[in-house]
């Protein structure tokens, strides 16, 4: 051993200045370090290089838009109903509903009354028609009617 490492502040103060001849000295250690520093860094394995470049490419890719803004979401919703024409149809139906609601057509009871009153004025009435129905005689009459033999 040659000289002690003076930067070693943890070395005991009474450490001997010399060492046995087979000891490993600081100069030898420094020589080992120098060899290690001079050694070429190992070549990158191809597989490792490929993995790192794949990581680099993936890190560059823009992240998927997981939270589209309100305008994009509105456009997507419109696309589901057929775009602008679909929106126009829905709007027209809505406006028609509003117009019907405000037009005062009355309740459904009035509608039914109007319908049945109209039905009562039809001639002949259903009961009269059934009584004189020629189609209920037999199937040959029905067939002749369908074939145009009966006007």
């Amino acid at each position, binding site marked *: *051993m040659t000289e002690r*490492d003076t*930067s*070693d*502040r*943890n*070395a005991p103060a009474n450490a001997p200045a010399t*060492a*046995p*001849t*087979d*000891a*490993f*000295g*600081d100069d*030898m*250690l420094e*020589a*080992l*370090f120098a*060899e*290690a*520093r001079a*050694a070429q*860094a*190992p*070549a*990158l*394995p191809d597989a*490792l*290089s490929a*993995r*790192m*470049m794949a*990581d*680099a*490419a993936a*890190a*560059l890719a823009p992240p998927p838009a997981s939270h589209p803004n309100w305008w994009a979401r509105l456009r997507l919703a419109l696309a589901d109903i057929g775009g602008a024409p679909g929106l126009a149809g829905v709007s027209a139906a809505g406006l028609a509903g509003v117009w019907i609601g405000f037009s005062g057509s009355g309740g459904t009871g009035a509608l039914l009354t109007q319908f049945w009153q109209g039905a009562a004025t039809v001639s002949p009435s259903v009961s009269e028609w059934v009584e004189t129905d020629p189609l209920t005689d037999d199937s040959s009459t029905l067939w002749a009617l369908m074939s145009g033999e009966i006007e």
Partner: protein
Amino acid sequence: MTAQDAPSDDALLCAYAAGDTAAARELMERLAPRVLRLAQRLLQDRAEAEDVTQEAMLRLWQIAPKWVPGGAQPSTWLHRVAVNLATDRLRRRRSVALDSIAEPDDPAPAVVEGMIEADRQRALDEALALLPDRQRAAVVLRHLEGLGNPDIAAAMGIGVEAVESLTARGKRRLTELLSGRRNELGYDR
């Protein structure tokens, strides 16, 4: 292109952040081999060293868009990340039962007279492997990677004085471990 014309690590990182994958390849070829060697020396395990290298580079890719040129050097930043990743793995290793640890490839010390340089380096690696983690990291970064103490302090997240203490104790321990192997290592011929 001369060394002076070569773009800096900063410039390459910024070019990569702008979408230049060729810059990423150049940066990888420039920085990753040293990271791999550092991880190999700290971990003494090739597969783990490759994993640490890939993970450290991935973190560099991820931070690229936020990188501020002119600040820390990418190489220093990368060393710090690699040291942290490696020391994390060393901590996990210590929690594994001793009998589950695989034997080293060649645990027997070389005894060939006139050991060649590669064998001396292996002897150094074997001795480094016996140092406590922080001592080994400090010695490797200071004496094998050639980093300055302030850079090492930044990489390890400790003070400069702590780095000096760790490297001094590490060197003393290395000389102890290598004592008696002077002839074996070919320094007396």
